[in-house]
């Protein structure tokens, strides 16, 4: 499976990824049109900056191997999809109880209060599995990298990381 990782030294904190994410997940697929139609696009990635203002990291779902959001979900909506290995939300089953929000260690599930649905990164699976944030990043800081299926331990380690290290 592939994972979204970041070359932190390249991220300048421009938030192009945030904008691209909101746009691709809006009904209009166009940011201005979406805003004009009073849609409130929900983004699933947030650029965070350290206290010293020296490092920026776009943060989105880590696709955990032992996802806390799945065990917390009391409706069976949040699940680990066998076919893709991704953690996905069956929105038709989601009731907006925010049990998943309460436990996601990375704080990356967005509670969409209007629709009462938990929203999170699906690596743009519905749009051809080609993440919009990766395409939008002007400096190439966000990478979509194949994680070796063979080395299970390494995979686990990589999955919970945000940062693309030397090996990648």
């Amino acid at each position, binding site marked *: 499976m592939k994972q979204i990782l970041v070359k932190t030294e390249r991220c300048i904190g421009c938030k192009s990824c945030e904008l691209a994410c909101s746009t691709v997940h809006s009904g209009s697929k166009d940011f201005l049109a979406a805003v004009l139609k009073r849609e409130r696009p929900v983004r699933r990635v947030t650029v*965070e900056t350290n206290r010293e203002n020296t490092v920026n990291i776009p943060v989105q779902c880590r696709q955990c191997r032992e996802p806390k959001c799945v065990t*917390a979900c*009391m409706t069976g909506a949040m699940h680990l999809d066998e076919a893709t290995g991704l953690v996905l939300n069956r929105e038709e089953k989601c009731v907006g109880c925010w049990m998943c*929000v*309460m436990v996601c*260690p990375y704080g990356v599930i967005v509670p969409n*209060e209007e629709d009462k649905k938990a929203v999170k990164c699906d690596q743009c699976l519905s749009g051809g599995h080609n993440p919009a944030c990766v395409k939008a990043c002007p400096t190439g800081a966000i990478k979509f990298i194949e994680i070796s299926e063979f080395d299970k331990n390494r995979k686990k380690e990589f999955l919970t990381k945000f940062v693309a290290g030397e090996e990648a």
Partner: protein
Amino acid sequence: MRYVIIGNSAAGVFAAETIRSLDKSGRIEIISDERYPAYARCLTSYYLAGQMSEEQMMIRNEEFYANNEIVLNTGQKVTGIDTAERQVRTDNGHIYGYDKLLIATGASPVMPDIPGAEMKGVFGLRTLDDAKGIAACAGQGGHAVVMGGGFVSLKAAYALLKAGLSVTCIVSSGQILSQMLDREAARILGDLLISHGLDIKFHADAAEIAGDSIDGEMTARSVKLTTGETIPADVVIIGKGVTPNTGFLSGSGIAVDRGILVNEHLETTVPDIYAAGDAAQALDILTGQRSINAIWPNAAEQGTAAGRNMAGSPVVYEGSLGMNSADFFGLSTIAAGNPKAEGDEYEVVKLFPGRHLYRRLVFKGDNLIGYILVGNTARAGILTSLIRERVPLGSAKNELKQGRIGQRLLW
């Protein structure tokens, strides 16, 4: 390998799934005294509110049991376990032999010892059948009395308000949700519920349920309070807490305290017999003691860990954490850890950043040990993680005290 699982809910189903992912050929049998495939007990209040059908409450699809080759035996109650013969007996005379056994029988509502509690129209709210029974008595415009001010009571009261009933909630203490919330948070939620029509009687208890004989059956008609007041009731819901379902274990040699005692592998005092979920008394992360934090996430995680151990892939259970999330009229509230801690060892910070917004943070030394968020609960999980992982806060503490919750708290 023969695996038998008693209980077809959070703990039982997550265990069965985990076992099947590790053991493709073993025989897995689930026994349940209910008559449904696994459903979300937590959604029974949504069912009462008319927001959800029975089908929508199922936590797995129809093919789940067949696809995973799990045999589901519904409508039978386990009455005893013979640990020497490795057999489970049920009330309809079936005997199930096991190599590994999981007890995931959950809990049942505690019914009060007051006159009239056995009448028709008086319910606990635990099962889908309870919800169906309540719905049958609770027509629009009717009157419901809910005993108790805890989480399940309020969810029930909220649902019945939404279904168009007038609802009175009887709370023996001076505040609602006294296990989960402090006075400040409870007041915000209480005022909101009251402004939407919920009638709350504080410092009161039910003394007696009175009724009429309808078709030869005594049926609840009113609730008399300790304060002398009488409240009309078409339906009475009891939410005075739950007790683990362990009665069938007496004489089995399996040690039971409040719940079934389990070790770090979720194994009971009898080898090859495990317990998980609301029935099990397992390690609590914060206290280091064995206790019961009866919520769905803990049941599912314990089921998963027990399943691994049963299927021969040992893991140590990391421990449970008390926490809960409630949402009434769009106001989200989340509390976790030990949010009500008071005293010299603790540092408590209370923030009121706006209308219907409240944050309470409890620190012990350099660690966060509890929190309450009312309104805007996004990213609460970061705080939960700070508690669970005992992250030393250092300079992040000041940031947190100002109410800023970001990923970088973890860096």
